[in-house]
């Protein structure tokens, strides 16, 4: 069977592919086709990494250049589909501001003056320290010898699959530092903590069987975990008659494609949910038996607790009409099955943890968190190398200020730089990997000041594919490979609980001197005489494929290189008895919060004056938060991020569509265009992330970085757009919600001025 047939067959549908699997194994990866009759095209399977979903892809290579990405039709998750970001992944490889050799700072921090150095010199500096612009910095060896390995702070943004395992579980543990920062607190941590507090909140029936989906602030058609797979599932369900109703402050594309959009005042989803629960309980529309078996409260307790959360009460707070709340509650309570879903729009608020817990309550009432739960085996790679002991030593920088938050899981990473600033602790070597905290956190000016201060952070090392706002402030920049030039073991779960094992493999040779940071970590370990058991990412992936029983039986590493994916058809969903879920949280009650989720107003939101609006942020469908604006095809489509403002509100404030407005927050102001629209709540003003880069290359910011080079990218002269938007994070303070310390992205009260 040749390549052509492989593709032809595999686009027919997943069931067919499965039958053909044996044949596919024979499909040679290097048997080219010619799509223009001239140039040979080679096809290789791999995995996307433009966002957290990590869809399975295939890449086409012509003359050693990656020219096109398609979805891998063998995957039952994304079924051969990818999103715009996935398509534009090629732009990450060939973009004119890509860092292709190690850089050492020669001017002041942030001066943009760099010297190209060798890998030998760069790794020498990291391991043994040295001098940066006349100042001595300590290296990894010294910190370890001095008994302070925790002064090596490692802060990552996106680190997934075996990359995570290798760096965190092998390298950092072997080295001995537990000073590890992530990006959870600016992402979804409030949701995660709510989950932790609530206990066993796995669904009680397969999602695909839902006939009514109630969505709070989830832009599932634009972004999200498992984005493309979820789009396919939900759009398929809608086609088959499932109703999707979306509560959102804004008419997102998701809201627009829902059966109904119900606008809600920012931060008041909780009031609406409590009122929905009130109607469901009062009308006995819940699944009593299931609820009582699974929840740690009785219906009577709940009835009392919810008594004053009437629809009329919620209307006053949220603006959602009483009759709407009643009809949605009735529909939710009487449809078999109903499910409530959510995302950042609902829970990245001051009251986010309680909002998410209230959403669990809704699900418990519908029976979705009943006595039975769906269990799916998560595919586990069998790593052949013994894990080093876990590191314990950790700087006191990760929990936020003492006593401020109830339960953080050590994840208040957006406040690391604040904690450094107030001298709670001090890292000697701060390594930032695939992360841009200066830009991605709130209060960017403060971040830039602290990351730029050599007294507070003596040695700042960035590992990046381009010079970001953060790497511009580093002392040393190591050029990472893009995700299309590296090796990773990945796992996913397809619908029906089928375990999917897949790999990411290089679609092209790493450009320039860029090196996969995972390989660099192996190299650093060797220099420090730490024995990881393997010396490269490729070796790790190869040995893991050959060691994991199901993969080994299918043909091991060679099979995975050719097919990209292995699905274990012996896996699937089953039902087991659930432990109780905590509708009431004793932990929260003891700290003075409502044990059963109750209303929690957001300070300053109740009496807005005529000129005050609540600022919310969102993601558009063609960009990630911060890492894709260097992709020309995406930024061509989306480079301006105007402020959405309701038509009536705009009239009141005298703001015209397209005119410039100044938005003042307690920590600063920004100027941007107004997008006057009927599609937003009158009390809200909404600006997407993604805009206003002042680094990250020519396509993102209009600024040519130090490494700007058009050698690999000849389209640059056709860049036609001048504007590159405004960065909304710069006027949002780096606050934390009182329970989880999660970033309150959607709570800032701002004042509008005409410019």
């Amino acid at each position, binding site marked *: 069977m040749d390549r052509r047939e492989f593709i032809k067959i595999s686009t027919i549908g997943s069931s067919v592919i499965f039958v053909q699997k044996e044949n596919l194994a024979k499909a040679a990866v290097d048997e080219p086709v010619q799509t223009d009759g001239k140039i040979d095209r080679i096809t290789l399977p791999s995995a996307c990494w433009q966002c957290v979903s990590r869809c399975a892809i295939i890449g086409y290579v012509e003359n050693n250049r990656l020219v096109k990405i*398609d979805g891998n039709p063998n995957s039952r998750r994304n079924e051969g589909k990818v999103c715009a970001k996935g398509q534009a992944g090629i732009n990450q490889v060939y973009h004119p501001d890509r860092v292709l050799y190690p850089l050492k700072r020669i001017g002041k921090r942030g001066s943009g003056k760099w010297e190209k150095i060798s890998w030998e010199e760069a790794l020498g500096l990291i391991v043994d320290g040295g001098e940066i612009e006349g100042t001595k910095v300590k290296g990894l060896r010294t910190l370890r010898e001095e008994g302070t390995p925790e002064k090596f702070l490692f802060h990552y943004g996106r680190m997934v699959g075996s990359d995570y395992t290798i760096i965190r579980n092998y390298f950092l543990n072997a080295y001995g530092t537990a000073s590890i920062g992530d990006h959870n607190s600016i992402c979804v941590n409030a949701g995660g903590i709510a989950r932790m507090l609530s206990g066993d909140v796995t669904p009680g029936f397969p999602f695909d069987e839902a006939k009514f989906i109630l969505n709070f602030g989830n832009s599932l058609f634009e972004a999200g975990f498992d984005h493309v797979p979820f789009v396919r599932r939900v759009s398929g369900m809608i086609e088959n008659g499932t109703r999707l109703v979306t509560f959102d402050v804004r008419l997102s594309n998701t809201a627009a494609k829902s059966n109904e959009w119900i606008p809600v005042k920012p931060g008041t989803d909780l009031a609406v949910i409590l009122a929905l629960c009130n109607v469901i309980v009062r009308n006995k529309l819940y699944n009593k038996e299931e609820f009582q078996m699974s929840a740690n409260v009785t219906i009577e307790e709940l009835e009392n607790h919810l008594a004053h959360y009437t629809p009329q009460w919620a209307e006053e707070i949220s603006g959602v009409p009483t009759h709407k709340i009643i009809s949605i509650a009735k529909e939710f309570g009487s449809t078999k099955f109903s499910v409530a879903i959510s995302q950042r729009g609902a829970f990245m608020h001051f009251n986010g943890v309680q909002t998410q817990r209230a959403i669990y309550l809704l699900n418990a009432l519908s029976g979705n968190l009943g006595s039975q739960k769906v269990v799916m085996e998560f595919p586990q790679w069998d790593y052949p190398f013994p894990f080093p002991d876990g590191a314990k030593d950790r700087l006191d920088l990760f929990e936020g200020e003492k006593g401020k938050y109830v339960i953080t899981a050590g994840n208040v990473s957006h406040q690391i730089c604040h904690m450094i600033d107030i001298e709670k602790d001090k890292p000697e070597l701060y390594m930032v990997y695939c992360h841009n905290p200066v830009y991605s956190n709130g209060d960017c000016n403060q971040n830039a000041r602290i990351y730029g201060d050599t007294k507070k952070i003596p040695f700042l090392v960035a590992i990046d594919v381009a010079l970001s706002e953060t790497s511009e402030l580093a002392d040393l920049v190591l050029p990472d490979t893009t995700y299309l030039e590296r090796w990773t073991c990945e796992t996913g779960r397809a619908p029906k609980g089928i375990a999917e094992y897949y790999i990411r493999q290089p679609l092209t040779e790493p450009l320039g001197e860029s090196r996969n940071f995972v390989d660099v970590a192996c190299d650093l370990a060797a220099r420090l005489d730490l024995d990881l058991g393997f010396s490269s990412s490729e070796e790790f992936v190869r040995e893991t494929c050959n060691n994991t029983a199901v993969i080994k039986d299918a043909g091991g590493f060679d099979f995975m290189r050719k097919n990209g994916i292995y699905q274990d058809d012996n896996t699937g969903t089953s039902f087991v008895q659930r432990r109780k879920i905590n509708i009431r949280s004793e932990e929260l009650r003891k700290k003075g919060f409502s044990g059963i989720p109750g209303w929690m107003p957001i300070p300053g939101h109740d009496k807005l004056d005529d000129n005050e609006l609540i600022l919310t942020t969102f993601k558009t469908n063609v960009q990630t938060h911060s890492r894709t604006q260097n992709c020309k095809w995406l930024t061509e489509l989306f480079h301006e991020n105007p402020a959405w403002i309701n038509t009536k509100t705009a009239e009141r404030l005298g703001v015209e569509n397209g005119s410039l407005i100044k938005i003042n927050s307690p920590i600063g102001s920004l100027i941007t265009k107004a997008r006057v629209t*009927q599609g937003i709540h009158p009390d809200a003003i909404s600006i997407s992330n993604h805009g206003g880069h002042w680094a990250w290359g020519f396509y993102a910011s209009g600024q040519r970085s130090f490494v700007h080079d058009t050698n690999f990218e000849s389209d640059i002269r056709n860049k036609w757009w001048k504007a590159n938007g405004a960065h909304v994070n710069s006027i949002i303070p780096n606050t934390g919600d009182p329970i989880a310390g999660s970033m309150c992205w959607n709570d800032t009260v701002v004042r509008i001025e005409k410019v």
Partner: protein
Amino acid sequence: MKDNNPKRSILEIAAFAIVGLIGIACWRFLNSIEYLLFPDRKKRLIMLIDLDKCIGCNVCSVACKSENGVALGQYRTQVLEAEEGVYPSVQRLFLPVMCNHCEEAPCLKACENKAIIKRSDGLVFIDKEKCKGLQLCIPACPYGAIYFNQDADPSADVRDYPSRAVGRSDKCDLCMGRIDVGLEPACSDTCPTDARVFGDMRDGNDPIRKKIHEEKLTGLLPGKGTGPQVYYRGGNRDLFKDTIVNPHN
């Protein structure tokens, strides 16, 4: 008693109906033997775009740029957006547009150099060898589907995009290179909701052909007599009336 004899009206209606039915039968018959009448025409390639399913994700337009080396500033396919209604009853609609591979393609007639070719399978493409870049085709297309491959630097080396013919007109060619080796067009291949489906009107088993027949679906600007082969379903196309008209017309 003039012409309003009910019996006669019924007879007339019946006669019309019979003529109509015969017409439909003939048409169906001709349709079914079209490949006998035109033996080299075994295929009529089409695209069906379901506006109820389209979520405006734009992956089609990016995939197209990637597959076809389309320069910044140009698109072979775009997703138009329109908003309608008054808060809180507001809708947003999406309309993906591309070349319609017209049966009676005005672009083809406008080209003096015979550089625009309609293949026997129906796809309309520009032969870059024959095209002299006169751009007569651009205003001739009622849909504005053709663009000119400009480059900020006309002498520029486009080595990174060998398929980009600078100084020639260009447009969607139904991903000729892909479909000729058995792949789907880049846009429909990647569409995550299957809003955009590639098919063949000559293939009796093709589900979208069936849908088009059953639901009597049409293409854009049916009044122009171009016989567009990109069919649309659902949505509210009227909202886009002004947008899809070629600004050159």
